[in-house]
C-alpha cells in the first residue's frame, strides 16, 4: 500500500486538503477544511511503503483507537477518521499555539518559567492518565501551549498505551519505541503500562529546559539507552547555579530509575511544581556532584540493584524485603479443575495467616515437549504468554493487590528442578503444590514427593477431596486438603 499524493485542493470524505504543514518519518500533516466543521483542522496521514517498518501503520492504528476516546482541554479534539480500505487518515483540531520545540533556542530558561511549564504539562498528564492513557512520547515537539489560555495540549498518541484497549505496539514490536533523550528506563526495557514513565520524560524535559543540557544526551543504541538505569546525570545546580534546591529535588526525583521513587502521580508532581515551599527536600536537592563511581558500579553490577523487569501481564512493584514469599505451583490441565480449586483455597488460607506475604504463581512449561517443533521460538513464546494469562486468571479469585502477587512461567525440561531452582534463587519461604492422581496428564504429581524431600522451605501438598464435590451440598465449596509440612532448613 503506497501513500497517494494528497494535492492541495483534493477532496477526501468532504475534507479539502490544504498545505502540508509537517513531514515526519511516520506521518504527514495537512491543513484541511470542511463545510460542516468551523474550526482549523489537521489531517494526519501515515507514511506507508510496502515492505518497510510496519511501526508507522501500527502506531497510526493506535492513535486511531485512542484519540477518539480522549476529551478535555489537554488533547486536540477528534473530528474524523478514515480507514485503510481507501486512505487512512485522522482529522483533529489544529490547536493554535507553538510547541515547546520552538523554545529550544531560548534555553536555558529561568527556573520559575521551567517550573510553570512543568506544572502545566503535569496537569495535562494528570488528565491523560485519568483517561487510562500513558503517553510514552512526552517531548518538546509533542507539547503545545494553547494560544489564549496558555494551557498545555498534548499531541501525537502514536506510541501511547491505553489500559483498556489492545496494545498493538507492545504485541508487534520487541524493540522499545520512544524518543531517546526522554524515554524512561522501564520503557527502554519494553514496559508500556507505567504512567510514571511520562513523569521521567517530563523530568528529562525540565532538566533540559533549566540547564540547556540533556541529562542523558541522545544515545542511539539500546545499550546507550539502558545506561540511564545506573548512570545518574550531573545535578542541574552544578550546571546552573541559580536553580533552586527545590527544583533540583523535583527534577532528580522525576529522573529516578525506579518509578517507585518518582512522584506517585502526575498530580503530585504538578502540586510540587506549583508549591515550591511544600517540596520535601532530601540530600539530592543540594548535591553538586554525581554519585561516586563505587555507587554507580554497584548500581550497574550488583544483582540487588534495580532493573526494570518486564512482566507481560503486569508490572509488579519491587519486593518487600521483610515480607515472606509464598509460591504456588499450578498445573493448568483442564481436567483437574477440582485440584486447581483446592490449590486456590489452600493458598487463600495461607495468605490469611501471613497478611504481608507475597505470592508467586509458578507454572512449568516443559520445553522438551516442543523440541521437535520446527517453530520452537514462536510456538514456545506463544504458549508462554497463554500460560501467564491462565495463571493470572487462576489468581483473580485471590483478590490480591498487584504488589503482592507475581506470575512466572518457568521454561524447563524438568519440572522438579525448575521449581526447586526458583525456590532457592528467590528465597521462597513456603511452596504450595498439588498432588496428582492421573499418571499420564500429570506434570506435578511425581514432582511433589521430590520437592517435599529437597526443598529448603515449608511445603504444602494439596489433594483434591476424595469425596469430590458431591458431599454435603450445604457445606462450603472448599475441598479438604492434606498437608505435609517440613520446617525450613
Amino acid at each position, binding site marked *: 500500500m503506497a501513500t497517494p499524493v494528497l494535492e492541495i485542493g483534493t477532496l477526501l470524505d468532504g475534507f479539502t486538503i490544504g498545505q502540508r504543514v509537517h513531514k515526519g518519518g511516520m506521518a504527514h500533516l495537512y491543513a484541511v477544511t470542511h463545510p460542516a466543521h468551523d474550526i482549523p483542522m489537521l489531517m494526519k496521514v501515515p507514511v506507508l511503503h510496502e515492505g518497510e517498518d*510496519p511501526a508507522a*501503520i*501500527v502506531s497510526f*492504528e493506535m492513535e*486511531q*483507537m485512542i484519540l*477518539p476516546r480522549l476529551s478535555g482541554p489537554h488533547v486536540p479534539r477528534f473530528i474524523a477518521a478514515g*480507514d*485503510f*480500505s481507501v486512505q*487512512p487518515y485522522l482529522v483533529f483540531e489544529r490547536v493554535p499555539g507553538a510547541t515547546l520545540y520552538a523554545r529550544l533556542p531560548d534555553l536555558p530558561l529561568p527556573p520559575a518559567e521551567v517550573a510553570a511549564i512543568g506544572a502545566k504539562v503535569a496537569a495535562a498528564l494528570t488528565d491523560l492518565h485519568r483517561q487510562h492513557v500513558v503517553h510514552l512520547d512526552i517531548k518538546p515537539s509533542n507539547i503545545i501551549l494553547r494560544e489564549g489560555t496558555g494551557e498545555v495540549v498534548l499531541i501525537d498518541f502514536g506510541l501511547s498505551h491505553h*489500559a*483498556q*484497549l*489492545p*496494545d*498493538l505496539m507492545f*504485541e*508487534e514490536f520487541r524493540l522499545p519505541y520512544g524518543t531517546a533523550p526522554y524515554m524512561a528506563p522501564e520503557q527502554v526495557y519494553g514496559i508500556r503500562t507505567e504512567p510514571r514513565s511520562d513523569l521521567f520524560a517530563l523530568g528529562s524535559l525540565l532538566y533540559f529546559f533549566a540547564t540547556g543540557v540533556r541529562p542523558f544526551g541522545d544515545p542511539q543504541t539500546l545499550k546507550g539507552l539502558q545506561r540511564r538505569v545506573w548512570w545518574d546525570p550531573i545535578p542541574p545546580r552544578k550546571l546552573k547555579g541559580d536553580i533552586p534546591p527545590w527544583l533540583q529535588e523535583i527534577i532528580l526525583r522525576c529522573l529516578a530509575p525506579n518509578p517507585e521513587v518518582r512522584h506517585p502521580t502526575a498530580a503530585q508532581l504538578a502540586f510540587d511544581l506549583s508549591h515550591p515551599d511544600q517540596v520535601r527536600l532530601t540530600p539530592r536537592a543540594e548535591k553538586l556532584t554525581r554519585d561516586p563511581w563505587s555507587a554507580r558500579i554497584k548500581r550497574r553490577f550488583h544483582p540487588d540493584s534495580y532493573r526494570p523487569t518486564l512482566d507481560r501481564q503486569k508490572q509488579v512493584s519491587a519486593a518487600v524485603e521483610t515480607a515472606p514469599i509464598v509460591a504456588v505451583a499450578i498445573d493448568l490441565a483442564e*481436567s483437574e*479443575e477440582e485440584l486447581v*480449586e483446592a490449590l486456590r483455597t489452600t493458598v487463600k488460607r495461607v495468605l490469611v495467616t501471613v497478611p504481608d506475604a507475597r505470592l508467586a504463581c509458578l507454572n512449568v512449561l516443559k520445553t522438551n515437549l516442543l523440541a521437535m517443533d520446527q517453530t520452537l521460538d514462536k*510456538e514456545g513464546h*506463544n*504458549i508462554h*504468554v*497463554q500460560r501467564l*494469562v491462565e495463571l493470572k*486468571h487462576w489468581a*483473580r*479469585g485471590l483478590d490480591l493487590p498487584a504488589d503482592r502477587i507475581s506470575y512466572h512461567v518457568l521454561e524447563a525440561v524438568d519440572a522438579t528442578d525448575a521449581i526447586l531452582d526458583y525456590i532457592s534463587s528467590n528465597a521462597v519461604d513456603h511452596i504450595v503444590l498439588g498432588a496428582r492422581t492421573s499418571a499420564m496428564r500429570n506434570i506435578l504429581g511425581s514432582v511433589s514427593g521430590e520437592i517435599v524431600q529437597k526443598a529448603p522451605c515449608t511445603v504444602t501438598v494439596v489433594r483434591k477431596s476424595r469425596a469430590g*464435590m*458431591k458431599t454435603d*451440598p450445604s457445606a462450603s*465449596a472448599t475441598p479438604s486438603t492434606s498437608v505435609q509440612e517440613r520446617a525450613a532448613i
Partner: protein
Amino acid sequence: MRVALLADIHANLEALRACIADARDNGAERWVYLGDIVGYGADPSACLEIVREACENGAIAIKGNHDEAVNGTRFRLNQIALAAIEWTSAVLSAEEKDYLDKLPMSATEGNCLYVHASAAKPEAWPYIVGLDQAVDSLNATQAHLTVCGHVHTPALYNLAVTGKIMVHTPVTGTEIPILPQRRWLAVMGAVGQPRDGNPAAAYGIWDTRAGTLAYRRVPYDIDTAAAKIRGTGLPDLLWRRLSVGR
C-alpha cells in the same frame, strides 16, 4: 445497528433474561445466539422457547456441542457434562430436540462469521484457549470478524496485516474499535455459566455502524438459577460454580 451476541446460555433462564434486558437497554436491535442454548442448567425448554421466538423475528441461532449432544452425538464430553445432557435430553420434547438438531453450524452476515467453537473444523468443537487455536480459526475464514463462544472466557484476538496474532483481555464495557485493517476473532464469555472468575452473565454488543465491540457483564439472580439446578439432582459442581464464576 447494534447486535447482541449471546453464547453459552446453557439453560440458565435467569442469566438469559438479564442479558436480553441489558442488551435492550443498550439499544440492541438484532440478536445472535452462538450455540449451547441447553446443557448444564435447569431451564432448557424455556431458554429454547426464547431463542425460537427471536429466530421467528429474524434472529440468528447456531448449534453448539451441547445442542448437538442432546440428539445423541456426545463428542468428548466429560462426566458432569454427560450427566447434564442425559437429564436435558429426557426433559426436552422430541420436537424441541429436532429444532436443536436443525440449527446451522455457522452463519455469515455481511463480513461477520458466527460459529460456536471455531471457524476451523467447527464440527470437532475445538476450544480457542490460546494463540495457536486462534490462528487456526482466523486462517479458516475470510471474515473480518468471527464471533464464537464455547470456552466460557472472553478474549479478543486480532491478526495484523504483518501476520502477527495478538490477544487482548477485554475490559467490561469498553467499546473496542474493531479496526478494519485487521482481522478479528471475538470469543464471547458465557451467558449462563461464566468461568472467568466473574459470576456475572457475559455477552457482547457489536455496533456495526461505529465498528466497535463491547464485552458486557450483567448481574442476575444466581441463587434462583442455582437452586433450580440443585432441585434437578444434577452434580453439585453445576450449581456451585455459578456463584463463583469458575
